[in-house]
């Protein structure tokens, strides 16, 4: 009853091609965005912004990027961490070289640079497939992290080996550093993520998205149908790296404020983002964000219950957290291999019939 599309007639092409063709979906998304833009900023504190909201938005965006590559185009990549690093270092170089540059332009330009790097490392995908490609992307991961350490120009030859974000404003509002208002950071990140997510939603149902999915489902068949593998795969690598690069740039400028090579952009981040899309759901935009929310919140909840409530020592809790996290991942895979997005879909199916059994 609640989720019926009966009676929603589409009378124009525009209505037929809307991103959310069902009215309930549309209203739900609009309500969610209204709450996120107009209500949440009044309750944001430095803790909630830095521990929950910013990581969620940024990792959600990175997961979306990886989902485009892995979920939609079927190319497994383990280089996400390093590509986020490329975005972050690009943002740093752009901000220090051109202090007047608008932050949004910095983010987008970092994304474009990362897209270039991503396409370069995506070239082997034309010849190498499956897990061989996954291991090959590790080459990108290790090589780029090495470059972050060795190429002093990237960090303006800072002696500490770190890059630190310079103070920058966005239309007169301070955005970077610890003295910036958490609500301002949150709103900028939210705006970026909203626009990019809607863009991705649009992209994956269009010509590009369909050619990616054809490649994923069977590359030989896709080729026979006239989809050229080179543009299809490289565009997936490019778009995916663009999203990941923007996420990395935001991670550095808005969230962390300082970053250092492999510590911040190491392989552990590649795995984290991969976990997000698997738990969230491969090949869904929604799943990227659900997975990010789950994996950002879970360690916080675990830590709070184990250390603060149950009074365990921090070290013991850390080890136990590893075990629990691993078990949860395995448990999730057994329970619902198609991720949280699939659970949401099942819920919608149920809501369509509710309160009748069938």
């Amino acid at each position, binding site marked *: 009853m609640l989720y019926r599309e009966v009676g929603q007639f589409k009378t124009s092409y525009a209505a037929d091609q809307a991103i959310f063709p069902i009215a309930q979906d549309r209203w739900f998304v609009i309500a969610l965005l209204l709450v996120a833009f107009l209500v949440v900023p009044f309750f944001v504190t430095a803790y909630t912004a830095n521990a929950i909201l910013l990581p969620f938005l940024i990792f959600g965006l990175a997961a979306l990027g990886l989902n485009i590559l892995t979920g939609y185009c079927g190319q497994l990549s383990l280089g996400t961490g390093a590509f986020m690093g490329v975005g972050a270092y690009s943002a740093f170089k752009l901000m220090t070289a051109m202090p007047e540059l608008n932050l949004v332009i910095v983010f987008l330009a970092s994304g474009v640079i990362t897209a270039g790097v991503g396409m370069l490392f995506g070239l082997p995908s034309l*010849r190498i*497939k499956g*897990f061989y490609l996954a291991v*090959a992307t590790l080459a990108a991961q290790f090589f780029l992290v090495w470059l972050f350490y060795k190429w002093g120009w990237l960090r303006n030859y800072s002696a500490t080996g770190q890059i630190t974000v310079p103070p920058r404003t966005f239309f007169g509002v301070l955005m970077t550093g610890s003295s910036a208002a958490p609500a301002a950071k949150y709103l900028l990140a939210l705006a970026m993520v909203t626009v990019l997510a809607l863009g991705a939603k649009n992209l994956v149902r269009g010509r590009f998205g369909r050619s990616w999915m054809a490649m994923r489902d069977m590359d030989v068949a896709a080729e026979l149908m006239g989809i050229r593998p080179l543009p299809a795969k490289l565009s997936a690598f490019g778009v995916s790296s663009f999203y990941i690069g923007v996420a990395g740039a935001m991670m550095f400028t808005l969230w962390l404020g300082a970053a250092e090579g492999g510590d911040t952009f190491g392989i552990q981040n590649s795995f984290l983002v991969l976990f997000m899309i698997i738990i969230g759901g491969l090949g869904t935009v929604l799943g990227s964000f659900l997975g990010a929310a789950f994996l950002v919140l879970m360690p916080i909840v675990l830590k709070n219950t184990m250390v603060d409530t149950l009074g365990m020592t921090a070290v013991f809790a850390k080890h136990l957290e590893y075990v629990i996290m691993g*078990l949860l991942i395995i448990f999730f895979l*057994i329970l619902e291999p198609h991720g949280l997005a699939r659970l949401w879909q099942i819920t919608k199916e149920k809501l369509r019939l509710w309160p009748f059994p069938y």
Partner: protein
Amino acid sequence: MLFLAETVISGLLTGVMYSLVALGFVLIFKASGVFNFAQGVMALFAGLTLAGFLTGTIPITHRINSALAMPPWLAITATVFVMIGLAILIERLVLRHLVNQEPIILFMMTLGLAYVLEGAGDLLWGSDVKVLDLGLPSGANDWLLDSFGLYVEQLEIVAAVVAAALVTALAIFFQKTRIGRALRAVADDHQAALSVGISLNTIWAIVWAAAGIVALVAGIMWGAKSGIQFSLSLIALKALPVLILGGFDSVPGAIVGGLIIGVGEKLAEVYFGPLVGGAVENWFAYMLALAFLLVRPEGLFGEKIIRRV
């Protein structure tokens, strides 16, 4: 010239150590198509368990009670049983429920498993660096040093001998025994194997147990070399280029790949590293493997992938 020979020999021997880890990957991939990322952590877990048994550490409390300390042979046997138990647990609790899932799901499962084993190893035996003292020889080999002036680690020679023995044993196991034949049948075709009455569940448990024992051997060798610590789980990352270079499903590939990577890495470190500021060993192996893959996308000895619509 002498220096070059020394570099090559040390590269070859390091390569053998990589092969030991890669072997475990190959075993599991061959028989079940699972890309087992937890292999490195399994080596760490096996090493930690062995060190715990040797010193008589009481699990979870991390207290050392020397009355419980086992002699090496007993400790190794006990660890073998732990690894077999672990394999049966994994098969029962996890693999059985993930039959027929896509490879990426199974790959993610092994990542989860890596987390569990890492946390469990630290919880049970403590996270401090442990010295593994099994009485394995260390230091330079005197005979080579005296007669040729070559500096070769004795431990690495032992590792090479052990690896050779292990590969021979595995080859005999695969070719001559009943279970080995069943394993090869499963590797060839799951459905056909099922239809002639081979139990997939048993085979998987056996394969994971074999991989666990290979992990124990790798854990002993690496542990004797650098102590048992968290970084041991990262050797899995070193074994991956070996794996793609040799081919995921080839035992000889793991050996040859290991040797190529070992030598290539050492040579690069010595001759190419200083030109670009050093520390190239983290990524050079991957780039080397990548270059090989561009010529042969399924690795040197991997089975040719035939695609049909």
